[in-house]
């Protein structure tokens, strides 16, 4: 078996290219995705292979191309819409929140919207507050959409392939900070089903649940806590909608303690939803209430050191774990 490694960004491209080779209905559009290879080089070389009919440079007009993709999807195509950053999707709120996830429902089941909206999500590294949105908190509130958020290169390919084949609108959240991360990525067809969380590290004392980039901070914290004699089980949720609660509940019933780590703001977030659901499902199993680690309730700071402290990080996660286990 091949142990080929790829960068996260190349894994994303491989998923798109393989699906585009297999299905002529799939195409990619967005700002600078063609001639410039994408602002983050995710679509490098795709224009050359697929031509300008299928790799389309758009005007700077997020609402425009998101809305247009809905029309194209209604006529049977399967658009992949790249937002240079999910932060820029805010100006496309009407098509992505008010049209795409509701079209099937509002047409009495006639028009589905098999669109993948994808792009960079979360703090990038001193991009400033307006370019650092974690949209999972806001957008996961909307029924009718699915949301995937890979943390590793193999999942980037596997989840994106699943997203492209999915018949519903999928919000696909990539972290700019992970794009250069290398990992083993299977060649050929690779599908990771939605709604299946993965135990990244087994442990007995506490369950740490996260998704996307913070999974790495959780693993870092788990490593450090091991030295203190605390055994952490780290679960990578992989998709927020649908949410695999069963895997989380199984783990919490074993460890009797839980920390949820979510890079969104805490109020009305996936983290608060997961905590609430765990409390309901595992009330008698918990030795402490579920702890949550979120970004601070302020706009993303511009200063490097403040940004690091603002985000969930290994130190803050470890503190939450100790607190959950009553370790001083």
């Amino acid at each position, binding site marked *: 078996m091949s142990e080929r490694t790829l960068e996260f960004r190349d894994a994303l491209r491989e998923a798109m290219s393989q699906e585009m080779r297999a299905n002529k209905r799939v195409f990619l559009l967005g700002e600078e995705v063609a001639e410039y290879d994408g602002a983050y080089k995710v679509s490098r070389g795709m224009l050359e292979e697929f031509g300008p009919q299928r790799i389309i440079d758009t005007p700077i007009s997020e609402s425009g191309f998101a809305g247009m993709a809905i029309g194209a999807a209604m006529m049977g195509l399967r658009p992949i819409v790249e937002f240079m950053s999910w932060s820029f999707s805010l100006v496309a709120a009407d098509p992505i929140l008010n049209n795409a996830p509701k079209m*099937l429902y509002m*047409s009495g089941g006639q028009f589905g919207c098999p669109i993948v909206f994808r792009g960079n999500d979360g703090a990038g590294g001193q991009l400033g507050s307006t370019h650092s949105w974690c949209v999972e908190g806001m957008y996961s509130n909307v029924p009718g959409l699915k949301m995937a958020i890979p943390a590793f290169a193999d999942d980037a390919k596997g989840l994106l392939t699943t997203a492209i084949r999915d018949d519903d609108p999928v919000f696909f959240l990539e972290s700019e900070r992970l794009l250069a991360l290398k990992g083993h990525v299977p060649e050929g067809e690779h599908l990771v089903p939605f709604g299946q969380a993965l135990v990244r590290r087994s442990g007995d004392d506490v369950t740490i649940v996260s998704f996307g980039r913070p999974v790495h901070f959780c693993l870092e914290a788990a490593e450090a806590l091991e030295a203190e004699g605390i055994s952490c089980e780290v679960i990578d949720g992989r998709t927020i909608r649908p949410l695999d609660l069963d895997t989380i509940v199984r783990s919490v019933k074993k460890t009797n303690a839980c920390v949820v780590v979510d890079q969104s703001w805490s109020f009305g977030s996936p983290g608060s939803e997961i905590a609430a659901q765990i409390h*309901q499902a595992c009330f008698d199993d918990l030795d402490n209430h579920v702890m949550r680690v979120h970004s601070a309730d302020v706009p993303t700071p511009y200063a490097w050191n403040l940004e690091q402290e603002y985000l969930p990080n290994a130190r803050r996660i470890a503190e939450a774990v100790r607190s959950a286990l009553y370790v001083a």
Partner: protein
Amino acid sequence: MPITTAFQTEIQRVSILDEHGQFDAELGDGLISNDDLVRLYEDMALCRKLDEVAFKLQRSGRMGTYPQNMGQEATSLGAAYVLNQDDWLVTCYRENCGLFHRGLPPEKILLHWMGDERGNHIDPELCVTPIAVPIGTQMLHATGLAWASKYRNESRIACTFFGDGATSEGDFHEAMNFAANLDIPVVFFCQNNHWAISVPGHIQCSAPTVAQRALAYGMDTIQCDGNDLFAVVHCMKTATEHARKEGRPFFIEGVTYRLGDHTTADDARRYRDQDEVDLWTERDPIVRIREHMKSLKIWDDSKEAQLAERVEEETSAIVQRAEGIEAPNDDDFFTSMYADLPADLRRQMDTRRTSSIGEDPSQIENPQTA
């Protein structure tokens, strides 16, 4: 010569049959056959009658908010008449006449406004999109539909309708910009009915015409008397030919007037003068065609009386069909949420609890694996 003219143009306005019965034979002859004219007139009569009936249904509590089409029948009708049956007709919510002409069962419109999503489950053969209420979103969908048609090497085009108010929306400008820059065959049809609820047209657009907005995008454009079915048909022929042959978008401003309230939740008397309404009542598109048909000796009072009777019967049958449909099942609101119902939503459906996953741990698969 330090200052030269970089660009100069004019906006053409088309009028063929005016409110005084003046008919421009040069442009109008042969545009609509007499048989077709009678059929189109009958479409308008049905639409007008259904408007009246729908208004009463709302007032008697049998239907939700309803936007009347009164006075604007000729625009969408002329468009639907010229378009091919497989061209996309992408409307907002005041295009009943064109939709009926296309073949949409009128009870679908009533069902929609009665609050039944099945009103928007439309036979795919009709190539009609669901009613779009958010203002302007459908222009982008139309651009996407036409783009998909081009992508698939089909000759189908899209025609989208919107009001003067929608031309202030970003979606309008983004759709226009896209269609023009990416060569997408869409006909943008603005029904300039002078009022966006209570906001007069000059608040939306301070240029003398809405049509000239298209020039900024390098798009061909024309204005017509939107209450003149002949003028609408003439412009639509120009527009569709341009879209098909050149693969380019085209803009039509149909100048018309909303004779009724914005919707049944509005009272237009509060913000516009009766004189203005009276003036436009004289320009009624239906009266104009009726008088023209009489002058052609293809219509008379007895035919009018027969039509009135037929339309009366037909509208009651439409209302009966709309009201006769069984109420949606409680489970129905889950069934069209996703292509396949996800497990968590299925649990909600089965238990009727929004947080049902946690309320009964026995529902969780393998809860005791520890």
